[in-house]
């Protein structure tokens, strides 16, 4: 399994745009955060951290996180689709489940890296803006870790779609179609908590009313919406790949 992960990462890191894709979201977040002025919103400087997180999540969690992971899921399957990579890979002594799991694990780790880069972007911009309060580590961990967990089901679906479609554009279109309404969903009390694509934002957005020590949303929501959609997307994709005939 380790060897499969190494091989997968080797193939991916040699692809074009991988590092650009990973860095783009956190980098834009950084510059966006630098431009934000809390006083124009009538906020005191002691709420600077909360302010930065709240505003950047709108951009990062609603847009960059789901779209970038979609691109990466497409990239990790693209080179297999192009010149018979699948059949060559699967004729090696590997099982399909392991191949699926290896690709998923790589995507998971990259997403985690992106979250940490986001954390770095917020921290650096806050320090540059002369934050007086200590860095709210607990708050950010909640947000970083929560956003990562919330992205896992989306990653599974994106991997499934990228395996299903030979073209790069098709799974990306699916991804966009589901991601765009998220901005509407998060404004809805009713649908927001139920919509899987709204979860990265909801779990990253700083709020105090969830009565949850670990996340910004209630446990029921984490378990049912995030956990449920993860099970469906992950095992749907895995089953599809295991049964795929036309390799």
């Amino acid at each position, binding site marked *: 399994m380790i*060897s*499969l992960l*190494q*091989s997968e990462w*080797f*193939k991916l890191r*040699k*692809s*074009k745009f991988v590092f650009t894709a990973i860095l783009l979201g956190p980098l834009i977040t950084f510059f966006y955060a630098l431009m934000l002025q809390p006083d124009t919103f009538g906020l005191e400087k002691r709420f600077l951290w909360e302010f930065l997180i709240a505003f950047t999540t709108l951009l990062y969690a609603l847009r960059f996180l789901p779209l970038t992971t979609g691109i990466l899921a497409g990239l990790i399957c693209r*080179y297999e689709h*192009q*010149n*018979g*990579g699948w*059949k*060559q890979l*699967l*004729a*090696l*002594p*590997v*099982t399909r489940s392991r191949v699926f799991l290896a690709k998923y694990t790589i995507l998971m780790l990259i997403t985690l890296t992106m979250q940490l880069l986001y954390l770095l972007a917020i921290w650096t911009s806050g320090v540059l803006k002369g934050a007086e309060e200590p860095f709210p580590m607990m708050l950010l961990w909640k947000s970083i870790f929560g956003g990562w967990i919330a992205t896992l089901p989306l990653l599974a679906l994106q991997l499934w779609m990228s395996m299903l479609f030979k073209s790069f554009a098709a799974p990306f279109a699916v991804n966009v179609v589901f991601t765009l309404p998220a901005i509407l969903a998060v404004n809805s009390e009713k649908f927001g908590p139920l919509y899987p694509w709204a979860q990265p934002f909801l779990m990253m957005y700083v709020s105090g009313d969830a009565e949850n020590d670990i996340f910004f949303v209630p446990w029921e929501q984490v378990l049912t919406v995030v956990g449920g959609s993860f099970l469906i997307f992950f095992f749907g994709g895995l089953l599809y790949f295991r049964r795929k*005939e036309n*390799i």
Partner: protein
Amino acid sequence: MEYIVETHHLTKRFGKEIAVNALNLKIPRGEVYGFLGPNGAGKSTTLRMLLGLMRPTAGSIRIFGKDLKKERISILRNVGSLVESPSYYSHLTAYENLEAMRKILGSPKEKIDEVLDLVRLSNAADKKVKSFSLGMKQRLGIAMALLNDPKLLILDEPTNGLDPSGIIEMRNLIKRLPKEKDITVLISSHLLSEIDQVATYVGVISKGKLIFQDSIKAMRNKAQLKIRLKVSDANNAYRSLLAKGIKTHYQDHIIYLYEQSDEAVAAVVETLVDEGYSVYRVEEEHQSLEDIFLKMTAGGDDR
């Protein structure tokens, strides 16, 4: 005889169409087994099933004496393959392609240089594969197939798209492998001439059915010589030969002899001349392997 590959009633159905029909392949150890058949006869489907890329509808596959269904991973550790068009990662160099594969196989790094050298790609090792010619890609495919020191090498139409010198090089490589490295080779082609030059054993598939399987010598024996006679009034000549107790075959004003020794031919000619027939031509007719192959595969049509 020890069989490296043995299938039992191997069958693959796509909907109503039967692509592979109750195949009983037997590939003896150390042979170059030529898997021959017209395009669409079911060759690739069979090879895909042997590699576990496709599930058989019915039947079983044993490779190295192990059941493929149960021990796929341990079997594939000792199998190298090149299925249909060469597979490669175009964004990687030749070396990196092999490296991505080596990581999974766990072979030593030196092996990469060794196989690159074997297929004469050492000079192009650090070039991106997308700039390769088809022949170079094909050779890289062979290098990949040899990376794990396989005991069984499965090559699907390996000379497709190669130029003449590439074809000769490939042939020599394939012929060398069983002797030097104790590799059993399964090679498929729709061209008899290809198989004829490298294979020691042949299986002919047509419309999903295996219609011939034996050594290439046995197949050549089928390509027998015929002596044909063109004479005046052939029909009556045939009858008078028959009256003298000489059995022949008459068809379209030509007399074919069963006995082909010099004496027998001389005796027939003498008899005909004595009887007053004019002998115009005494000819040898060769039936090539190609004719036999065509007859075999055409026979498949009636089934």
